[in-house]
């Protein structure tokens, strides 16, 4: 199974289970979706439930809010996170706030799905991660789907809950082969320990999680230690408990994101976790992220701007040696 097929399976299941679930977005119907996530659903559920919209992100989110007010459970696809900026008034001022401003009288059970991250040479306007923006808006749930399991169960949860959910995917994961691990009760807001270890806690998600896992054998060999790798799964709420527990064991924390380091979501993770574990630390925490530049087009520069398995390994090894591992 491919990562995108896990998303498709979740959409399909939820649509067949509940006729109030509708999809809307650019190119998602007749065309089948630019990344094929909605492939086959138009044929199965028709144009009233898989709705092609104009290229008007503001209105995609705006009409979805209206649909949710009117009793539906819309799943809006924004083609990539980059275009969500056009819809930011709807997301920040409307979606996140209406429940609160109405004293809880209006609920908006809806999802905005979108891929983010640096793919290959798409240049600055199409290569970015924005989880920090969504995370900082009270009223939004923010999930990140790093593998088929979190994609499948996470999206099913996002559709079934009554809160508005920002559901972030990664462009480069769509064609990746992976399987859904069956789970009886999936907790979408819990971080998941992907690999247990004793010496370093590494927090990551989306593509960076996969790059981290590639870097880990080298790190473990060079530093003669073991790494505990945690898939964050949920950006908001943040599972401080799971991370803190791990850091209390390893006494060392690394956070890896694809966002530029300044103001990245890693800061939030570090801050919240450090409040819990400061006196347990045996090394200053390490933050690994993209450079503080718009993503360049040139492939060499592009790779230089974001973390790669090699860079992750190198930075952690240098950091480890400097701080007594």
């Amino acid at each position, binding site marked *: 199974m491919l990562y995108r097929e896990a998303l498709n399976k979740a959409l399909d299941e939820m649509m067949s289970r509940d006729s*109030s679930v*509708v999809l809307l977005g650019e190119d998602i119907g007749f065309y089948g979706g630019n990344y094929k996530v909605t492939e086959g659903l138009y044929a199965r559920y028709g144009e*009233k439930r898989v*709705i092609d*919209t*104009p290229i*008007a992100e*503001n*209105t995609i*989110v*705006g*009409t*979805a*809010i*209206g*649909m*949710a*007010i*009117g*009793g*539906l459970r*819309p799943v809006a696809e924004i083609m990539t996170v980059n275009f969500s900026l056009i819809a930011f*008034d*709807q997301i920040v*001022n*409307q979606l996140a706030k*209406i*429940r*609160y*401003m*109405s*004293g*809880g*009288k*209006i*609920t908006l059970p809806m999802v905005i799905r979108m891929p983010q991250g640096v793919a290959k040479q798409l240049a600055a306007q199409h290569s970015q991660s924005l989880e920090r923006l969504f995370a900082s808006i*009270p*009223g939004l*749930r923010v999930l990140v789907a790093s593998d088929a399991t979190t994609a499948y*169960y996470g999206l*099913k*949860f996002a559709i*079934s*809950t*009554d*809160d508005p959910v920002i559901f972030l995917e990664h462009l480069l994961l769509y064609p990746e082969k992976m399987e859904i691990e069956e*789970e*009886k*009760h*999936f*907790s*979408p*807001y819990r971080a998941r320990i992907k690999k247990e270890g004793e010496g370093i806690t590494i927090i990551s998600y989306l593509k960076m999680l996969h790059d981290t896992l590639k870097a880990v054998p080298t790190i473990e060999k060079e530093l003669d230690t073991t790494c505990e790798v945690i898939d964050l799964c949920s950006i908001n709420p943040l599972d401080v408990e799971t991370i803190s527990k791990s850091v209390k064991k390893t006494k060392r924390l690394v956070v890896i994101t694809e966002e530029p380091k300044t103001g990245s979501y890693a800061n939030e993770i570090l801050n919240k976790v450090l409040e819990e574990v400061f006196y347990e630390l045996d090394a200053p925490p390490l933050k690994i992220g993209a450079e503080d530049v718009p993503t360049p087009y040139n492939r060499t520069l592009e790779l230089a701007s974001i973390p790669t398995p090699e860079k992750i390994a190198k930075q952690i090894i240098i950091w480890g040696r400097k701080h007594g591992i």
Partner: protein
Amino acid sequence: MNKSYAEQFYYLMKLGRVFELRAKEEYMKGNIGGFLHLAIGEEAVHVGSVLGFGKGDVFVHYREHVYALAKGIEPKYIMAELFGKITGVSKGKGGSMHLYDPKFNFYGGNAIVGAYIPHAVGTAFARKYMGDTTGVLVAFGDGATNSGNFFESINTASKWEVPVLFLCENNYYAIGTRIDRVSPFVDLYKKAKDYMPAKQVDGMNIFEVFDAVKKAKEYIESEGKPYFIEALTYRYEPHSITDTGDYRSPRELKIAKEKDPIENLKAIALREGLLTEDYIKFVDDKVKQIVEDAVEFAISSPEPPLEELYKDVFCEVCIDVVS
């Protein structure tokens, strides 16, 4: 036109006017904070459209007290909201610009110009999808017709064929900028006429507004398609309490006030025998009492408890697992 409508018109317009004047007074006393946008002068559009539209969802802008009253929300809950009290229609968390009550199909109260127009389109889609033919009313000012939200929405509603009545209240001013300074033409219905039936009415005459909206409602519900009405109106008050309003000449204001919608209604209704002086006196006394009671209710209502701060951000009964 029957008598009972005329009586309703007068009662709601008068209630709206007295309510807002009293709100202004309470604002000056410091009992109400933030922005307070008054609709004095525009009551014919607000009351006429809500009554003409009848049953159905309503999405409006931040100048919405009279709409909310016309929809049936009790004055005391609105006043309490203005006072920021827990008994307010939005538990004191929304304020003047954010009155919501799904019980009355009333969805705000939105403080971003034009941003809720797509919400109306979406809700109309949802209703139609679920087999409900009832239309949706969305009202916005002249300023909103210059925004992307407006154009995106008339395009989408027209293509999706959903029953939305777009009601533009053209009061000529977006805060302090007159519409001809920012729009190539001032007959705003022309902006929609290639997408859907579009028409202009005198917004200072409630009978005209009522009739036009009633017909539009019949059209959108029988055809399942959108409709556009531009109502020409005028706000006597500045944009909000904090605005001086000095961009309009005393002469312009004087001319506008001569067309006061309440006086207009009174004149027509008395002439036609739809209202009596006794009724008018009865209503005038009654709304005064209602508004006094509303203020009393608002003052005596408790503040929201501190724990209310964290409530209504997310669903509190949702289960955080899925299988």
